[in-house]
Structures are given as structure tokens and as C-alpha cells.
């Protein structure tokens, strides 16, 4: 019992906070507090990060992730409050200022007014926000960007921002400030999700129709975030339209989608349901049937679906239940076949399936304990599963009555159950305190092979691989957003983590500091320092192509990965033009990185995964980022530029010397333009440029015996007993550069009001000038049998069209 108690201590953290935190409401109010929510007037959807401020603009706050705000002020005869949010009309109210008051705001979106362009000033300008290295793209803007094959993509839009790179052509993965994709923490309504892409990275798993808000933090991490080294992608699902039933459906080359949201008759409950299905297999099924004469079917399918229900229990309590499912399947099915044979017909069939995907379920309870204290308790389960299986059956009618059934399956995955409690406490306008705790129970399945074979001559039933590993993680954090003077503000926090696996406990305290200092009216200097630790690793095959991701825990042999990041910057707003300018320099050091050993193999689960990796890797990333963003007017968009250097060092690789990371990119630039040509026509264009990826190439070669007959075949049959091939001797790792990458995408959105709603046509072209961008470089012989370097390119110009109908 004592052991069990020790093992389960971490479960007590969130529970204890649920009892302790409400005590804060018992404090006497020496001042008055105004609190409430800011929401969309048309849908009732809460607005995250909306500004609420007292007339004059010197005192204010922003809504939290639940759309809640709280302002505690000195008593006064009257109080004028304004709420504003980008793309919405401001709302202003005047209140009696001598008593604590509940005041919510419903803002009207600009696009419901006569003039559809985004208007007004930026009311929570960059220089006044106590944050840095944070990127946000409004979902409405995201849906107007040119999209690969016509499907708006939540992740791909962030690749156009400074400090975020795409990796290889077509990939939707995010490489944030030199980190790898596994170093990104992706949260869907506060719950981690492990795999975020369809089709091996070409499309994100998030349906833009179900998303209300998405933001990416690449540095300056507040203490409430942790668990990954390089970034946090915070995605929020819509709650569902509170006013009326609405939805949309769309058809594109890549996917078909449908969503529906609205209130239930009780007036207290709303729902959102969305589903999306890939269309690729619809084409490939037909093509493969035709090409194989009906013998086999090959295809790639994917889907994702979300269901979210929210219910207003009381004026101060709201509960949410959400389910998310997403998955991909690559399949090859050999249909039942019969081979006629006078000795007895032979029948067989077979199937291969590669499946992977996420499942997530959560229940959340939001409670406004007092005008100054807001709490959120989440109970959630999340799972990532990866399976690669084959099955085969055969039998014949010969006198021997032969038969064979065989199945092989490789399975890997991770599943978490977590409970977390988060609180926002607003004691005064000078402080916004956030604190909370999380307890997570992880179960990792690093990789298990199972085989069963039964025939009329033999039977095999075996399974082997890395054992399931359970790990427990407990987290407590506290942060205070402090307004030290009228010019100096800071967010200071601590995050403490204890992570226990196989009797080994890792722990640490991660300090976080971010400060902003106003210089003049529209300019601020910003600086941040953060440390991060990552207690799980991703083993991923080095190449592109099929997703083959295994999540494994930190162990006694494989230490947690660590990072430390320092950033300084300047933020400036040109209010008259609605332009925000941000310049940031950062330095990030990475420790205890792991890499697949060069000769290691992926599925070989007869070998412990800990023997397949090299450890103790180090990384250094330095960069300078410029972002000029115009958020209002007919022309919106941004220009981004990153100058960076990104290196790695492992004692066991490259002779122990530092080498460029595969996606080290010295220059990376993007231009994004969205122009409202007419009220119902939007044009958009994006242009990207990047230094070529790093690559290892051969510098010499020698002959090796590729195959030898030896003495096993008679000499009259095996004329040449040895076959030779060229083996290559490689130069320094990643010492060669591909040509620069650049690409123009264009798009147009045509919206028309029709009966019961709108219809939207989207047309566009990916790689509009059909640039042959390098995907890979390889040696081959030319017509004169001279060895030359050749380049493989993936996508020429890809036109796309999609149709969407909303109601």
C-alpha cells in the first residue's frame, strides 16, 4: 500500500488545487471588480485574447482561453469599459463604478456589416501585450490563403511565419526555431495530441471548419506550458453556435468535409460536429482495380471528426465534452483469386494495412469561483496508435489439401490519461496570476511484432518487441503577469515537473521570465528566458514519405531532452496603417538529443529501441526574425524574414564534429498578401524563399561484391561468379546544399449569398510559376556514361478548386 501511495502522489496535485484555489475568493475586496466574458454576437462563440480596457487605455486586460476577463479597480463614480477584438466592432459600456459588477460583451464581426473589410485599429497592440514570439493567424484569414489542392490547412499557414519552417517540399510539419516536429506540443482544447498530420505530413489533422482559435508560441513560454522543447501549438475547437443551427459542407480534390453546430432546445447546450474525409482513395481504388484487372485495390484514405458539446450549468459553471478522432490508412487488398489447376484449384487472398491516428476524449469544467477567480478542470484521455499489418490466406483442392493462414502485425503507440486544474486569479490590474497542476499517466508501446502462421505443415504464434512502459508525470506551475510600472511589465513563472518511469524519477524546476518595456507610445523592448524539458522522444525514420513514428519515454539510459532559450526583441505598431512590426533575436541551446543510429532499423523490435539510438546530442540555434504584419484594411498580410543557423553534434556521428541540421536554413522569407477586391471576392498570394536544405553526398566510391554465386552453382551456369556494385564514401554530414527553394501560390475566393446561406468557390494554384524545387539530389550516369548530379523535384504547378456551402 505504501508503494501505491508513493506512486499515486501525483494524482493529488490537481485535486488539492481544486480545494485550495477557491479560498482566494474569501479575501476581502478593497476594490471593485468587473468581470465577464467577451463573445461573438452572432454565434455566441467566446473570443480568446480580446482586449478589455478602461477608457483612456492605461488599465486593461485580455480574455483568457475561456473568453473570461476580470478587472479589479479603485472604486469610482462611473466606469467606461471597452471590449475589442481584431475583425470586430468595439463595444463600450458605462457602469456604476462602486460595486462589483458582472459585465459581458457581445461583439459584432466586421464582415456582418456593410463594409466587409477588416477595419478599425488594433486595440491590443503588439507592444502592449505581455508576450513575445507568439504567432496568431485568425481562422477567417487562414481560410483565405492559397491552399495546397484547395484544402485550407491550419498548420501550413504557420509555415509562412518567421521562425517556422516546412522541412521538405509539401510537408505540413513545423520546424520551429530549429527544433524538430516532435519538439512541438500540440494542444487541442488543452489536451496533447501526438500526431498532427494526414498523408505523411501533407495536410494537418485539424479541420479549419471546427477551429475557433489557433496560436503558436515559439519562445517566451509562460509557465503553464511545457513538456516539449521548441513550441506550443494551442488549438481551440469551436463551442458551437449559441444562436441558431448553422453549418457548411465542402468538396475539394483532397477532401470532403461537413460541419454542423447549434443550440439544443433547452437553450443551455450547444454542439459542434465536424467530419472530413480524404478523397484520394476514391481515385486510386478505381485506378488500381483497372490496372490490376480487378485483382487488387490500393489506396490511401484519411478522416478526422470532432464532436464538442458545451452546457451552461449555472451562470458561473459551464461544462464541455469533446471527442476527436483522426486517422490514416494505406492499404493494399488482394481480392480472393482462384488459379485453375487440373491438380486442384488454388485459392488465396491477402491484405496489407498501414494505419495510424489519434483518439482523444475530454471533459472540462469551467467555473467562475468569484469575480476574480476563474478555474478550469480537465479530465482527458488521448491516444496515438500506429499499426502495420499483413494477412494472407491460401488453400487448394489438391490431394494434399494444402492451406496457410498467416498474419503479421507491428504495433506501436502511446496513450495518456490526464487530469489537470488551471486557475486564473486577478487580484488587481497589476497582477494576473495563473497557477495549476497536472497529473498524467502515460503508457508507451514502443513497438511490438506479432506473427501467427498456421498451415497443414507448421504453426507459429509468436510476439516480441519492447515491453509496454508506464510513466507518471506530475506538474505544478505558477506565473504572474505583473505590471511593475506604467511602462514595465513582466510574466514571471516557475514550472516544476516530476516524471517517473521504471523506478527512475526525473525532475526539475523550469524558470520562465518575460519582460516588456514601453519606449514611447508605440514601441516596446521585449526579452524572455525560458527552460524546457521533454520527457518523451520520437523515433522517426530519417527520410520523408510514410509516417513511421514511435513515441518512447525518457529512461535511465535515454535522458530527457532539455532546451534553454533567450530572446530579445522590439515591437512597434504604426497605428495609422494598422501595421505591427516585430524584430526578435534568439539563441536556443538543446541538450540530450537523440538520433536513430545510422545502421539501425525501424521495425526491428527484436532489438531494444534503446540500442537503436545515439544519445547525448547537442544543438545550437541562433536566429534573427523580422515580421511586418498588416491586420486591417483591404490589403492585409505580412512579410517575414528569418536569418538563422542551426547545428547539431553527437559524439557518435560525423566524427564528433558539429554539422548543419538537415533543415538548417540561413535565409527564409515569405510574403503573404490578401486583398479584398470586392466585397465578395478576395485575392491572395504567398511567396516563399528558403536556402536549400543540407545534404550528405558521396565524395568517392569503391567496388563491393553485391552478390556472389561462390561454388553453389555449377560453373557452366554461373559464368561470372561475382557481381559488383559501387559503394559510396560520404563526405562530412550535411555539408552539401541543395539549390534555393522558392514558390508562388495564388488563390481567389468567391463568396455569394444564396438562399439559406453562402456558397464559396475557391480556386488557386500551388507553385504558380512551376519552379523545379529540389526534393533530393542523387548521382546518375548521363548519356556519355559520365556520373552527374541530378535533382528530383516533386510538384510542378498544381491547380485546385473547391466548393463550399454554408447555411
Amino acid at each position, binding site marked *: 500500500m505504501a508503494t501505491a501511495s508513493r506512486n499515486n502522489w501525483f494524482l493529488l496535485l490537481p485535486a488539492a488545487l481544486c480545494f485550495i484555489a477557491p479560498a482566494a475568493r474569501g479575501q476581502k475586496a478593497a476594490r471593485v471588480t468587473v468581470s465577464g466574458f467577451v463573445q461573438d454576437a452572432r454565434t455566441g462563440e467566446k473570443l480568446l485574447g480580446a482586449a478589455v480596457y478602461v477608457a483612456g487605455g492605461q488599465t486593461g486586460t485580455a480574455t483568457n482561453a475561456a473568453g473570461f476577463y476580470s478587472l479589479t479597480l479603485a472604486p469610482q463614480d462611473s466606469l467606461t469599459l471597452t471590449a475589442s477584438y481584431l475583425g470586430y466592432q468595439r463595444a463600450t459600456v458605462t457602469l456604476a463604478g462602486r460595486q462589483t459588477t458582472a459585465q459581458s460583451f457581445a461583439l459584432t464581426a466586421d464582415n456582418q456589416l456593410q463594409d466587409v473589410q477588416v477595419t478599425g485599429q488594433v486595440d491590443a497592440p503588439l507592444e502592449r501585450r505581455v508576450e513575445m514570439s507568439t504567432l496568431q493567424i485568425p481562422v477567417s484569414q487562414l481560410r483565405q490563403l492559397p491552399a495546397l489542392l484547395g484544402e485550407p490547412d491550419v498548420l501550413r499557414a504557420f509555415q509562412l511565419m518567421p521562425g517556422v519552417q516546412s522541412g521538405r517540399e509539401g510537408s505540413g510539419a513545423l520546424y520551429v526555431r530549429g527544433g524538430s516536429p516532435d519538439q512541438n506540443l500540440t494542444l487541442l482544447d488543452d489536451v496533447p495530441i501526438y500526431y498532427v498530420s494526414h498523408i505523411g505530413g501533407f495536410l494537418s489533422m485539424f479541420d479549419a471548419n471546427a477551429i475557433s482559435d489557433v496560436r503558436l508560441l515559439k519562445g517566451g513560454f509562460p509557465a503553464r506550458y511545457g513538456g516539449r522543447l521548441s513550441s506550443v501549438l494551442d488549438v481551440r475547437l469551436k463551442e458551437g453556435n449559441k444562436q441558431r443551427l448553422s453549418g457548411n459542407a465542402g468538396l475539394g480534390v483532397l477532401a470532403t468535409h461537413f460541419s454542423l453546430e447549434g443550440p439544443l432546445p433547452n437553450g443551455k447546450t450547444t454542439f459542434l460536429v465536424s467530419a472530413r474525409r480524404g478523397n484520394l482513395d476514391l481515385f486510386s481504388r478505381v485506378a488500381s482495380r483497372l490496372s490490376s484487372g480487378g485483382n487488387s485495390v490500393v489506396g490511401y484514405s484519411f478522416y478526422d471528426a470532432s464532436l464538442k458539446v458545451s452546457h451552461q450549468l449555472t451562470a458561473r459553471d459551464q461544462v464541455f465534452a469533446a471527442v476527436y478522432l483522426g486517422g490514416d490508412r494505406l492499404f493494399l487488398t488482394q481480392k480472393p483469386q482462384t488459379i485453375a489447376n487440373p491438380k486442384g484449384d488454388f485459392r488465396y487472398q491477402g491484405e496489407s494495412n498501414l494505419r495510424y491516428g489519434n483518439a482523444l476524449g475530454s471533459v472540462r469544467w469551467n467555473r467562475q469561483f468569484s469575480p476574480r477567480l476563474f478555474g478550469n478542470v480537465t479530465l482527458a484521455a488521448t491516444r496515438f496508435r500506429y499499426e502495420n499489418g499483413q494477412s494472407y490466406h491460401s488453400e487448394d483442392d489438391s490431394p494434399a489439401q494444402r492451406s496457410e493462414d498467416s498474419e503479421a502485425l507491428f504495433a506501436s503507440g502511446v496513450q495518456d490519461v490526464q487530469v489537470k486544474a488551471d486557475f486564473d486569479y486577478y487580484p488587481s490590474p497589476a497582477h494576473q496570476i495563473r497557477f495549476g497542476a497536472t497529473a498524467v499517466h502515460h503508457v508507451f508501446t514502443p513497438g511490438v511484432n506479432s*506473427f501467427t502462421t498456421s498451415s497443414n505443415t507448421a504453426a507459429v504464434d509468436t510476439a*516480441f518487441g519492447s515491453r509496454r512502459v508506464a510513466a507518471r508525470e506530475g506538474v505544478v506551475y505558477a506565473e504572474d503577469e505583473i505590471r511593475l510600472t506604467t511602462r514595465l511589465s513582466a510574466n514571471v513563472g516557475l514550472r516544476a515537473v516530476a516524471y517517473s518511469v521504471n523506478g527512475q524519477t526525473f525532475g526539475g524546476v523550469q524558470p520562465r521570465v518575460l519582460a516588456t518595456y514601453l519606449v514611447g507610445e508605440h514601441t516596446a523592448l521585449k526579452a524572455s528566458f525560458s527552460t524546457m524539458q521533454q520527457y518523451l522522444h520520437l523515433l522517426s525514420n530519417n*527520410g520523408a514519405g510514410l509516417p513511421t513514428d514511435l513515441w518512447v519515454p525518457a529512461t535511465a539510459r535515454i535522458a530527457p531532452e532539455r532546451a534553454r532559450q533567450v530572446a530579445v526583441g522590439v515591437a512597434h505598431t504604426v497605428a495609422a496603417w494598422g501595421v505591427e512590426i516585430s524584430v526578435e533575436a534568439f539563441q536556443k541551446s538543446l541538450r540530450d538529443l537523440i538520433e536513430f543510429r545510422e*545502421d539501425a532499423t525501424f521495425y526491428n523490435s527484436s532489438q531494444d529501441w534503446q540500442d537503436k539510438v545515439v544519445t547525448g546530442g547537442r544543438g545550437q540555434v541562433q536566429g534573427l526574425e523580422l515580421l511586418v504584419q498588416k491586420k486591417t484594411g483591404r490589403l492585409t498580410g505580412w512579410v517575414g524574414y528569418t536569418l538563422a543557423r542551426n547545428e547539431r553534434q553527437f559524439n557518435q556521428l560525423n566524427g564528433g564534429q558539429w554539422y548543419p541540421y538537415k533543415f538548417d536554413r540561413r535565409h527564409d522569407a515569405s510574403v503573404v498578401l490578401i486583398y479584398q477586391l470586392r466585397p465578395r471576392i478576395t485575392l491572395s498570394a504567398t511567396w516563399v524563399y528558403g536556402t536549400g536544405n543540407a545534404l550528405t553526398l558521396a565524395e568517392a566510391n569503391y567496388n563491393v561484391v553485391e552478390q556472389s554465386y561462390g561454388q553453389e552453382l555449377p560453373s557452366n551456369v554461373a559464368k561470372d561468379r561475382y557481381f559488383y*556494385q559501387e*559503394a559510396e564514401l560520404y563526405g562530412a554530414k550535411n555539408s552539401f546544399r541543395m539549390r534555393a527553394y522558392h514558390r508562388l501560390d495564388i488563390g481567389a475566393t468567391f463568396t455569394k449569398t444564396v438562399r439559406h446561406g453562402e456558397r464559396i468557390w475557391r480556386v488557386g494554384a500551388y507553385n504558380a510559376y512551376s519552379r523545379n524545387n529540389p526534393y533530393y539530389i542523387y548521382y546518375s550516369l548521363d548519356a556519355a556514361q559520365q556520373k552527374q548530379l541530378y535533382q528530383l523535384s516533386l510538384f510542378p504547378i498544381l491547380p485546385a478548386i473547391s466548393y463550399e456551402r454554408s447555411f
Partner: protein
Amino acid sequence: MRHITDTVPVAVPIRDAWFSFPTGTDRNRELLGTVVVRFDDPAATANYYEISGYQESQFITLDPRGNAAITAEDDSELNPKSLVFSDKLFNGMPFELRASFHPTNGGTSNGVPFTRPPRLVLRAVSRAYYQYRKSWTRHLFNQGGKGDTYDLNQLLFLGDPSAMYSNVNGGYGVVVGYASRSVTLPLR
């Protein structure tokens, strides 16, 4: 002067082997056959094997669908020329391989499909030989699959360049040993 040593393993006899034809078709509806080979793994030592098949003087590609020991080697996606594996999963036990193959020749006789009997070679190889062959399979694949497996599409799925194994200290190449047994397979 460099001194390199390797040990030639003791040959492992083939206990039983045969082939059947036809036993399936591929996606192009071409007939496939199946080879079956059985041998007993010596228990006292760690053993390494290479199995390859021929018809006349041409190699045949063996597809060991669902065989645990060979699947665990994780070579199948890399177009290996032969099956190279260790006895880690069947040390000291009888081993059976069933593998389908594409005949290099064949036809029909009185409506009955036939092909020439394949010849199967079982090599007991040294650990250095095993490492050399494993690294070669990866090395060749990551060059884009030269030779008769040349396929540019393979470049989409390859990984980083993979260096060749060598047991020559400070040099390249290998000195390795093997002992083989071979048999022409009877039709069953």
C-alpha cells in the same frame, strides 16, 4: 600492413526443402510460386544466415511474408537481394521459411502451369558478413536503388545516407567468411 581476421562458420545442413507452383499471383496477375526450406539452428552459438534462390543463373527475389525472424530484420522495404538474418528469435530451434517468388521462366503443359525447379542456397555466415550485408542493403537503398532495383520513386522514401560496414580498421571493405549448402528444390 593490416591484419584482419574472421571466422568461417560451420555449415548448417538443409533438413528439408521443396517448392510449389503456382501458389498465387501478383498485382499484374503473374503467377507466383512458394519455396519452403527447413533447417535446425545450432543452440550453442549465435548464428547468422543468408538464404538466396536462383533459377538457372538468375536470382529470384524471395518474399518471406509473415516470417517473424526475417521481418524482425526490417529489410523488406529495402529491396534486399537475399534474406540475411540472425537466429535471435529461434536460437537452437528448428527453422522454417516459406517465401513466395517470381519464376524467371515457365509456361503451361497440358493446361498445368510449370516452372523450372529453383536452386536454394543456405549460407551460415559470420557476424561480420551479416553486418556487411545489412549495411549494404541500406547503403544501396539510400542511393536511390541502383542496378536492377533502380527506381527514382524510391527517392521519396529514403533516409539519410548510410555508411558501409567495414572490419578493416582505418580503411574500407570487409574480409568475411561463410559456409554454404545448396539444393535444387523438388516440386510438391
